[in-house]
């Protein structure tokens, strides 16, 4: 009997073809990144030939569609930073304490209910959160903060804070559960209370994961769009952080909200206003990119070995 062990040309071609097709699919991700960078940079480049870097990055008035047109991005950055700061002040402590509860205090049954429940928070679309902020939360807050304006930072921050809690909680919780039990036992064996074990051994031992979850959360908030567009209003302004009342209770426009405003307006593809969209987008993209890379770096470099 003759065995034909030779390679079959037809089959080989098919295998190579399949591999090539899948490779090109995977390579699509690289193309997407390149696409994003190219699109942002080319239109921004044209924009910066019409509006100087200086005016863009130091101007304190943002008015792309209303005369006199000015393209200073500082109010938008100020708006984004303010909104991000307030939201983080709500989401980070809450997320961390929730993670500690899940990791150190809750039993299996409670965890199995609480964890999926927290995931639901992240599944609600931000449009809906924006509506909640505008129509439910703001009126409720107004009843004991009479000077609260209809569009304000506080309501938007509360709802987005709620939305971000699962991000921080789940990554921090994973980091804490990864701390080996023998370290907890060592501390207990010395005669310290559970509170001391949690705060002086577990949390410090999980710190790199916890911190990277914070940074990731912050990055998400910076990129958050619809809630703050609906509930924050359309007025861009330089936020005065020295006056907390003014900061929290007045409207704000973030970079993302400003982009939406241009997007829904009548600007044509050939105008400076249209291209300003990409300049702001580029700034936003740069900010979130840097944060994501810092988060990944911290997680990698400071990963504790137990």
């Amino acid at each position, binding site marked *: 009997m003759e065995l034909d062990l030779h390679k079959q040309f037809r089959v080989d071609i098919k295998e190579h073809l399949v591999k090539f097709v899948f490779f090109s699919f995977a390579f699509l991700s690289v193309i*997407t990144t390149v696409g994003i960078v190219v699109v942002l940079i080319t239109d921004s480049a044209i924009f910066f030939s019409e509006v100087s870097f200086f005016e863009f990055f130091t101007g304190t008035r943002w008015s792309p569609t209303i005369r006199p047109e000015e393209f200073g991005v500082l109010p938008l950055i100020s708006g984004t930073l303010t909104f991000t700061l307030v939201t983080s002040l709500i989401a980070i402590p809450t997320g961390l304490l929730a993670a500690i509860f899940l990791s150190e205090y809750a039993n299996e049954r409670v965890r199995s209910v609480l964890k999926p429940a927290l995931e639901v928070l992240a599944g609600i679309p*931000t449009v809906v959160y924006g509506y909640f902020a505008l129509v439910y939360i703001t009126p409720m807050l107004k009843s004991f903060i009479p000077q609260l304006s209809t569009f304000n930072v506080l309501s938007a921050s509360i709802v987005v804070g709620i939305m971000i809690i699962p991000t921080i909680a789940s990554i921090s919780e994973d980091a804490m559960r990864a701390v080996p039990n023998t370290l907890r036992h060592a501390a207990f064996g010395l005669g310290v209370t559970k*509170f001391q074990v949690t705060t002086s051994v577990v949390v410090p031992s999980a710190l790199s994961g916890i911190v990277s979850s914070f940074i990731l959360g912050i990055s998400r908030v910076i990129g958050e769009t*619809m809630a703050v567009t609906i509930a924050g209003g359309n007025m861009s302004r330089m936020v005065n952080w020295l006056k907390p009342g003014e900061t929290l209770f007045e409207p704000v426009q973030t970079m993302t909200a400003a982009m939406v405003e241009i997007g829904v307006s009548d600007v044509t593809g050939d105008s400076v206003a249209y291209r300003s969209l990409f300049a702001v987008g580029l700034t936003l993209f740069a900010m979130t990119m840097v944060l994501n890379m810092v988060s990944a770096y911290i997680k990698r470099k400071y990963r504790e070995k137990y």
Partner: protein
Amino acid sequence: MAVKDIASGAAEDNIRKERIKGIVFQVFCVIAALFGIVSLGALLIYVIYEAAGWLDLEFITNTPSRFAEKAGVRPPLLGSAFVIGLVALFSLPLGVGSAIYLEEYSKQSFFRRFIEINIANLAGVPSIVYGLLGLGLFVSTFGMPHGIVLVGAFTLTLRVLPIVIVSSQEAIKAVPDLQRHASLGLGTTRWQMIRTVVLPEAVPGILTGTIIALANAMGETAPLIMIGAATTMFTSPHGLFSSFSAMPLQIYAWSDFPQSEFQHGVTPAAIVVLLIIILSMNGIAVYFRNKFYQKKRQK
């Protein structure tokens, strides 16, 4: 050694102080854990309560209108369904194919790390930037019309792809090597092995990740605004090149209407419709995830 030292009454050490701190701390932790859930629960109850009178069959079949009683969500509902359907159609092969390449064909090399880092980065890009990509690439460069179904689908596909790839990778990784070796040992080609052994095993995991990604995409608004989708349409889309609107866009448009019948009637109804769809999709995904874990446990 004084034995009374170890009784709870002894006060010379700091245990009592620490214990009190501990109890206060635990209370705060519980509050934190429940804060989000309770708040959202309250908001959801409220919105359902307000939607109650307005959510009926007519609401689903009518078109949007200035008049609250006549308002409906058919066009944006069909728009969402159409676009998300296309996103599923595009993202599954692209996403699973990419995952197959990464897990089954490529070796651990710098190039593979490079692609994986890329995908991780893309997952962290704000969705509005994907809208800019769609605008600059599909509309400006390729010259496709503003706000048509196909452009919306392409844009959201790119947005959703990193998540689909990563969850497919996880599902494929979970297939034991033993099975791969069994197949190859019988003399099958690589692709045959993937097609007949790896993929069937990985399907529940792949579906879970994809459905969750699609549920997220249903709620995406900003990218669609950027590519020019209308916030309100009176006609439903009938082809790939039709203009369209989507549920979240309609909700955004209606959030501007100050009339009480809208703010406390029509818009909540639209929100409830959207939430029902999204939560059902998540529920289906969880169902597949449980099936996936059952399969793993059976081994």
